[in-house]
């Protein structure tokens, strides 16, 4: 087997006495699309936040493309990573948030150019070309000079996707990216993600409540329960024929809600 793009090795995360993730082991192959589902409080969003280094881990090691993310090799042992090392490995990862988190004082275009210019060191022209191309790809070529407050939720989220892609990550994380949207705007965002899946070589990890989308789009579905992966497998198996009682209960509750 090739080196996994992302590997959680015995990762534990707790807040005081509350263990959010308990000895998580998870390997994700390059280009694989993994959907994470589960009840609230099961630790699914924490998985993404740890990978993005927004949360510290208490134990274990996360590897990205074969390199430890939160630790670095020093004299043959793993020690906590310093800022410079962290930033190098973190550059492989991009994230899209539930509440978009666009920069409100910058146009859609500037949102997509800011980090490529100041972090990657791209020339302004090159960053502008890249941003324009990505905004076209998400269907917002016409809106590139608008500010976030002038855009709908669906449009803002598509800008956020373009902004993350402008950094050319190998891994994209989607954290409930349609949860804050009005129902009629969900489709346009999911379409962009579908397009990414077919046109780009990206490893994708998404926390989602869109079961239909997870079933159709993902290569693998992980069902989280109580800080552990309770069950995982191909979408058809998880959704049609789950082995675990908890999975069945969760799915029937979600489907009942429509």
């Amino acid at each position, binding site marked *: 087997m090739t080196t996994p793009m992302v590997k959680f090795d015995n990762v534990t995360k707790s807040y005081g006495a509350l263990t959010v993730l308990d000895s998580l082991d998870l390997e994700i192959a390059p280009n694989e699309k993994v959907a994470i589902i589960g009840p609230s409080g099961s630790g699914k969003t924490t998985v993404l936040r740890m990978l*993005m280094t*927004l949360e510290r881990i208490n134990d274990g090691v996360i590897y990205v493309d074969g390199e430890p993310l939160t630790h670095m090799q020093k004299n043959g042992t793993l020690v906590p990573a310093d800022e410079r090392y962290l*930033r190098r490995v973190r550059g492989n990862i991009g*994230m899209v948030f539930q509440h978009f988190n666009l920069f409100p*004082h910058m146009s859609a275009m500037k949102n997509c150019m*800011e980090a490529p210019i*100041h*972090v990657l060191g791209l020339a302004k022209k090159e960053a502008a070309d890249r941003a324009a191309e990505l905004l076209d790809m998400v269907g917002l070529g016409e809106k590139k000079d608008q*500010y976030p*407050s002038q855009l709908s939720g669906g449009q803002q989220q598509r800008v956020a996707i373009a902004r993350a892609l402008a950094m050319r990550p190998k891994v994209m994380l989607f954290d409930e990216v349609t949860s804050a949207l009005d129902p009629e705007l969900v489709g346009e965002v999911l379409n962009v993600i579908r397009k990414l899946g077919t046109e780009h070589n990206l490893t994708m990890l998404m926390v989602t409540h869109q079961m239909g989308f997870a079933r159709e789009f993902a290569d693998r579905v992980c069902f989280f329960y109580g800080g552990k992966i309770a069950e995982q497998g191909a979408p058809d198996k998880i959704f049609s024929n789950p082995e675990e009682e908890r999975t069945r209960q969760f799915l029937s509750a979600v489907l009942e809600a429509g």
Partner: protein
Amino acid sequence: MQLRPLAVCAIVFFTAGLAVSSFAGFREFIPGLLQGAAITIQITIGGCLLAVVMALIAAMAKMYGPLPLRWLAVAYIEVFRGTSALVQLFWLFFVLPHFGVNLDPMTVAITALGLNVGAYGAEVVRGAVNAVARGQWEASVALNMPRALALRRIILPQAFVAMIPPWGNLFIELLKATALVSLITISDLTFKAQQMNQTTFRTIEIFTIVLVVYLALSVLITVGMRTLETFAARGIARGR
């Protein structure tokens, strides 16, 4: 308050000022008092600039600096907020010479008032930075920005808008505190007024003019800050 009522106020004061100055009884004091007002304005502008710089430095040091710098910032803020501006003026003017440091009165005035208001301003800056949505920091991390870059390009520009109204208050406080510099031999507006009062005893005219001048200056600050706020907030719906 909207901009328009403020503009109306300013015009009313200005016309009232003109009317007052056309009375012979008032007119003879105007040139002298305006000389004093010029000094007051100089100290206010210098003090405000120093206050903004000190507030930014102290707030950044307190929030993000290494431990010794953080202590230094906390000490600065506590000392200058916790003691009277008048005592600070006296200390710089009368005590420092004993240690061989002789500063001219204008430097002392601008330094003392700037440092004093800067200490309050540091807390204004800190509050505004903390009020920027946490998601903005998280987006900056997700785009792999170093913290200093995120602060400079993403966080501070948004905090800036929220800072403007409280800074307006502090600038007005500073303007009024300039009256204290009359006690360290500077002929500002208040000093001139007292001097004229001692020779002419025309208390009513003199101190009425002084009142109006201070009020007009503070309205000017308010109008300026409102304009700045409208300008800065344009195109920005603050992030959540």
